[in-house]
């Protein structure tokens, strides 16, 4: 169903610029921590942990990444630290409770579909189930008033992409320029890139006219 992922900028790694004027001290310090400080699970229970890892895997499949981004670990850390976004929807509990409740609902939903838990569903069934969650085609009794779509989009998806595309792996994959201070960019015209940007990208036919 979903086409395999084709990387448009193979070989581009923003970390190659680590010593260049594109990086300053504070950015190096922040990224050093991001790359090295991965905490062990502190928030989720072992059972939830399996489901969360499977969820991250379905949402952001990384089987082609030589160094996969530890998404579940970062979500766990953010919840443990009580990181907030500034918004709590009135129909949602606090992020910690929402995650617990949502993961339980996903597990119950998976069990209703004949598996032990979300992690044990076949990949296609996982995809189908998440699409149903997004469409609201789920049994409401598992969700206890938690809005499935809001949980899935605003918490699960939003948090996973926030971690993945803040990571050099995700940023390099899309050909983003990466850190840029003190050096920014000179060439502002279409199809022009500075020598410290990714070389021109290459997309499969379906994305090219």
């Amino acid at each position: 169903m979903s086409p395999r992922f084709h990387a448009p900028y193979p070989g581009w790694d923003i970390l190659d610029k680590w010593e260049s004027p594109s990086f300053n001290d504070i950015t190096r310090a922040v990224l050093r921590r991001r790359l090295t400080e991965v905490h062990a699970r502190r928030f989720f229970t072992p059972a939830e942990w399996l489901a969360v890892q499977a969820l991250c895997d379905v949402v952001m499949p990384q089987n082609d990444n030589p160094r996969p981004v530890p998404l579940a670990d970062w979500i766990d850390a953010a919840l443990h630290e009580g990181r907030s976004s500034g918004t709590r929807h009135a129909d949602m509990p606090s992020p910690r409770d929402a995650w617990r409740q949502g993961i339980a609902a996903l597990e119950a939903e998976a069990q209703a579909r004949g598996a032990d838990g979300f992690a044990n569903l076949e990949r296609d069934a996982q995809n189908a189930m998440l699409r149903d969650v997004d469409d609201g085609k789920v049994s409401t009794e598992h969700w206890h008033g938690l809005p499935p779509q809001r949980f899935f989009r605003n918490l699960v998806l939003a948090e996973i992409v926030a971690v993945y595309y803040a990571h050099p792996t995700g940023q390099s994959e899309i050909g983003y320029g990466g850190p840029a201070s003190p050096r920014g960019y000179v060439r502002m015209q279409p199809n022009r890139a500075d020598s410290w940007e990714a070389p021109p990208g290459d997309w499969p036919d379906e994305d090219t006219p």
Partner: protein
Amino acid sequence: MRPSARNTRNRDTRSAALGIGALAILGGAAILMQRRTQPKPRPKPRRKLRRSAAIMGASMLVDSAMEHFRGGFHNKAMLAAPVLAAASTLGATARAPHMLPVHATSVAVGAAGLGFHGYNIAKRPGGFNWDNLFYAAPIGAPGGLAVTGLLALASDAHTARHGRMLAGFTALATLAETAEVALLHFRGAWHNPAMYLPVTIPPIAAALLLEQALHPNPKTRGAARGAQRLMAAMGVVGTGFHIYGVSRQMGGWHNWRQNAFDGPPVSAPSSFIALALSGKAALDLMEGAP
């Protein structure tokens, strides 16, 4: 004095004061030296013109190479400008007739470049508006290559009549250069008061030179010559300003791969030195120096 928290123009006013002071000393010395060395034989106009063409050519070489590199040489014709600027610069040291094809090509390519640059401006959204004049291909820049070629060709000039023609040409080239400076310093919001100097001194120098071209007058020729010397000194001081300008961009010279391009062009002010040499050569010819 209590240190101030706010952003101030101190860097600009102080550097302007320093620069204008330096210009006063350098320009004053240049003008005074002219008086003192009057009895000594001056360098021949030919040598001045060759030097003028070489300086102008070198300035054009650096400028066009950098600007066209910035443009990624996306059109192969963009290579022509630095290549010819290099050829004319080297050629300027030889006798003009041998190098005629080179210099003539520089003139032709410079003229054609005006068309290319006009096209580059016109095809951007907004067409010929201020923003594209500021940031698209610089409208007058290729003229500098043509001027280089013409200066090199002019080094064979030897009559007073040639001198008048050269004076007129140099005056017009100076005015064109002033227009370009005005455009770019306007883009820079005249943030440093010294940015007004290259739109003040060169027009005066050009006017005095033009007067000599139209109505040769030995009485005011000294003033014309002094103005040329002052303009040359301004070219030197201006280069210093531009080097300083790059240093105060974010990251300074350490970030030269950005700032040498986005900051003030270091090679640009030296074109006024070239024009001043040419102007002096013209005045020499009018005074009968071969």
